[in-house]
Structure formats: C-alpha cells, structure tokens
C-alpha cells in the first residue's frame, strides 16, 4: 500500500484526488503529493529499509506509488564517494560525491521515471511520453521497453549523438523537434491536452515523477549513517530536483528516520549560458525571467524552468546560494572530477563541480561543512564536449625506442595532466 492521501496545490491549497493531474485547475500552480506521515512513520524503519532492495524502492513508503513489481531497471543505491583528493584541491574538509552517473541509463532520471511509469501503469496508461533534454528520453525509452509500454519521447534536434542513439536503440518513437527544449516542452504541454490517454511523465504525471528525486536525499542520509549533510550542491534545470532533495531531507526527520531536524544548506548550480534562476538569485529578484539557452550543458538547458521559483526560494530559505559557470569552467569541472576521483561526469556534472569551486572561492561552501555534490549524469553521454580538449598523451610507433622517447613515468613524482 501507499501512504498518499491526495494531491494539493502548492500555491492555493486546493485539494485534488490521486489522478493524472499536475496543475491546479484554478491557479495553474503545481500539485504536490500529500502523505499520511504518521502512518509512514509507523510503517518504516531504518532496519526495514536496510533489508529492502538495492534500488530506490527500498524507500517505497515515501514514494507516491506502491507496487510489488515496480517498473524497475535498478535505479538508485548509487555510490556516495568520499572525495578527499577533490576536497584537497578545493580546500574543503569533508566532501562527498553522489555518483549518480552509474544508474541504469546513466543519469538520475531513472529514479523519477521508475516512479512515474509505475504510477502511470497503475492509473491505466499504456503510452509513456516525455519532453526531454536527452537523459529523460533515454530513461523513458528504456523503462517503457522493460514494461512493454509504447513510448513516444520528444527531444530537441540538436542533442548529443550519444543521447539520441541510446534513446533510439530501445525501439520506441523518438521525435526530434526543431527548436530548443522549451519549444519541445511547450509542444508536449499542448499535446498532453490532445492525448489525455498518454502518460507524459513530466507533464500530466509530473506530480508523481518529481517525487522520485527525493531518493537522492534519502540515499545520501542513509549512506552517511542516517545523518544529513551540512551543505549540498545540486544542478538546476527545471529546479524540480533541487526542491525535492530539500523535501527528502525534511521528510526523513518527519517520519523519524533522522534523529535531529536537518538544516541542510542547499546551493544551486547553473550554466552561465542558461542561468535564469541563478540570475534571479544574484539580482535579488522574485521573478524568473526566461532566457534562450546557449550552453554545452544541454541537459540543463531549460530557459523557462517550471520550478525555478521554488528552487530559488528553497536555496534562499536554506542559506545556500547559486553559482553560474561558463562552458570553459564546465569542461574544467569535468576534468577536475575525473582526474581527482576517477568519475567521468556529463556536462551537467561539470556544472556542479565548477559551481562548487566558485561557491568555495566565495566562502559560501565552507571547509568546516560536510558537503555533498550531486553528479547526476554520465560523461559518456557528452563526449563531444571533451573530445577537442583531451586525447592520447602520446601517439607512437610500436617500438621500445619510440615509447622511451615519448613517455616518462615517475611514479614517485606523478601529477595528472590538468591542461
């Protein structure tokens, strides 16, 4: 069983039944899942979770759908890596990287899609659809294949090759739209009115879908021995993930899984070429002005972020900050994480690491804090960004002489290339 009592508008509080609804009929505000937290508290425990599956479904009491056999490729339970080398480079003390690059389709989207499609199937949907910057399309196509559902995914036509291929391989319908992600999103918002029998995971199923991101907080707390971190850095596209990470930590306390009320500072990371929320933060504004994205971080290229306002508010209320980083800084962030910790992130992960660097430099993220950086997509998806700047350190003839002339390895005085 699940512990959902209904849906509620985050803006005006109007209540709605547990159906495929994402916005308030009256004010268009987003709907939130309402849980019976007392019942969850009675039903869950650290021991029960520890004995659960090695997936997001170990936290099923705090997810909006319950199914003995969810639509599952194994999302979640990704490594939380203590990042001492990166911490040393940045001048931090206790730094952890949540390595969500290793999910089944290579990004955190598997968390939200597993939840969304399991709920969609329960609600009777047979078609899985989405508007995607790439990672979501990968994940919807894969999970729909697993579930035997029809899939129709929509992506901007200028995506990275890997994201197009790793979506198309699953055999569903993948539609490349001539335009930006915001164009794709607008099209899907309109299509969802025309095709109410389709489950657009991030339109009509979005209320449930977004809840999957809470597992990013649940896992970090469990992996830290049921303690919350002091500060997290989260990439921001629509802003949904950041707000749900915050919600996740606070729910753990609400249901008794954390002993102390967490006070997690939450900072947001954006690419300078698409930073509507970071700009509003910097300007002290309450209105998010949409932008036209120009960044290599295509998975974060949402110029009109649906949850931008809530992400802004969450960051401000928690005492965090926003950073925005250039394409060059994104590349450097990817390389820094790779050479210090052996983790290859996609461009969005480069945004997180480069933003972390900036936030450390500006004194927002401090050496006395337990810090977690969320790295949410795999570098193999965006190799185009790195191909011009990294390659073999030597190309030689297959002879001992050529090797000796070209390569000098001193294991006692070794520094990895950073240029």
């Amino acid at each position, binding site marked *: 069983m699940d512990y959902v009592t209904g849906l509620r508008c985050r*803006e005006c509080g109007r209540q709605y039944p547990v159906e495929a609804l*994402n*916005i308030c*009929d*009256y*004010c*268009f*505000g*987003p709907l939130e899942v309402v849980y019976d937290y007392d019942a969850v508290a009675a039903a869950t425990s650290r021991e029960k979770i520890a004995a659960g599956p090695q997936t997001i479904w170990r936290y099923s009491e705090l997810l909006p759908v319950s199914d003995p056999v969810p639509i599952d490729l194994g999302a979640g339970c990704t490594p939380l890596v203590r990042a001492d080398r990166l911490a040393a480079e940045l001048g931090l003390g206790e730094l952890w990287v949540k390595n969500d690059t290793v999910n089944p389709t290579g990004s955190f989207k598997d968390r939200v899609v597993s939840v969304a499609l399991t709920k969609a199937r329960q609600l009777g949907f047979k078609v899985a659809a989405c*508007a995607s910057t790439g990672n979501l399309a990968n994940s919807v196509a894969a999970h729909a294949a697993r579930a035997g559902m029809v899939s129709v995914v929509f992506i901007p036509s200028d995506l990275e090759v890997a994201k197009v291929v790793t979506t198309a391989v699953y055999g569903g319908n993948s539609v490349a739209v001539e335009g930006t*992600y*915001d*164009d794709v*999103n*607008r099209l*899907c*918002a*309109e299509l*969802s*009115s*025309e095709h*109410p029998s389709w489950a*657009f995971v*991030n*339109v009509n199923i*979005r209320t449930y879908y977004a809840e999957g991101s809470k597992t990013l907080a649940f896992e970090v707390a469990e992996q830290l021995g049921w303690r919350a971190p002091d500060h997290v850095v989260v990439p921001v*596209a*629509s*802003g*949904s*993930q950041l707000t749900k990470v915050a919600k996740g930590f606070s729910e753990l306390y609400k249901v008794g899984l954390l002993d102390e009320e967490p006070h997690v500072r939450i900072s947001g990371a954006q690419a300078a070429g698409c930073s509507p929320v970071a700009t509003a933060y910097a300007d002290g504004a309450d*209105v998010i*002005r*949409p932008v*036209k994205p120009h960044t290599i971080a295509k998975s974060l290229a*949402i110029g*009109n*972020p*649906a*949850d931008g*306002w809530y992400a802004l508010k969450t960051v401000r209320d928690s005492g965090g900050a926003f950073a925005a980083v250039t394409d060059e800084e994104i590349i450097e962030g990817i390389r820094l994480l790779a050479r210090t910790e052996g983790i290859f992130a996609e461009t969005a992960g480069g945004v997180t690491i480069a933003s972390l660097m900036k936030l450390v430099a500006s004194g927002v993220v401090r050496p006395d804090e337990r810090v977690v950086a969320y790295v949410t997509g795999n570098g193999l998806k965006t190799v185009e960004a790195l191909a011009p700047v990294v390659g073999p350190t030597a190309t030689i003839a297959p002879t001992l002489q050529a090797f000796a002339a070209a390569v000098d390895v001193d294991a006692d005085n070794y520094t990895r290339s950073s240029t």
Partner: protein
Amino acid sequence: MSVTVRIPTQLRPLAGGAGEVALDGTTVGEVLKALDGAHPGFADRLFDDDGALRRFVNVFLADEDVRFLQGLETPVGEGQTLSIVPAVAGG
C-alpha cells in the same frame, strides 16, 4: 484582427469544452480580454490582482513566449495563433 486562441484542458470547461476559440483584438492583452468577454471567468484564471499574467501561466504567440516579445502589449496579426499553456511542465 482575428486570432485563434488555443485553450488548455484545465480551462476548456470555461469555453464550453472548446480547445480553440476565434477572437478579435490588436494586442495579446486585448485578445485575452475578449476571451474573458466571450467566456466570463478567464481573466480571473489568467491574471493576478495587478493585472499581470499569473506566475504559472505561459502565453505563446506563434510559438514564441510573449515574455520574450512585448508581453501583453505584443501586437497580434491576422490569422495568428495564441496559445495558453500551463507553465508547470517539463524538466
């Protein structure tokens, strides 16, 4: 100028269930006011107390967000399509 206004599911009951309504006006704001004139109730749903578009309402003229144009003052042309689209989607 006669323009077509596309209505999202949530607001179709106000327009008798129609997904599209043809209306006259010379700016986006005038067309939306005409929509409220033809089907009372729209203004309350689309505008806040200051008369600005609500935070979670997007309006597109010929597929461009009117916030990138001149907002409610944006001129409309004969035969153009104005789409009202809920903002909370995507990501």
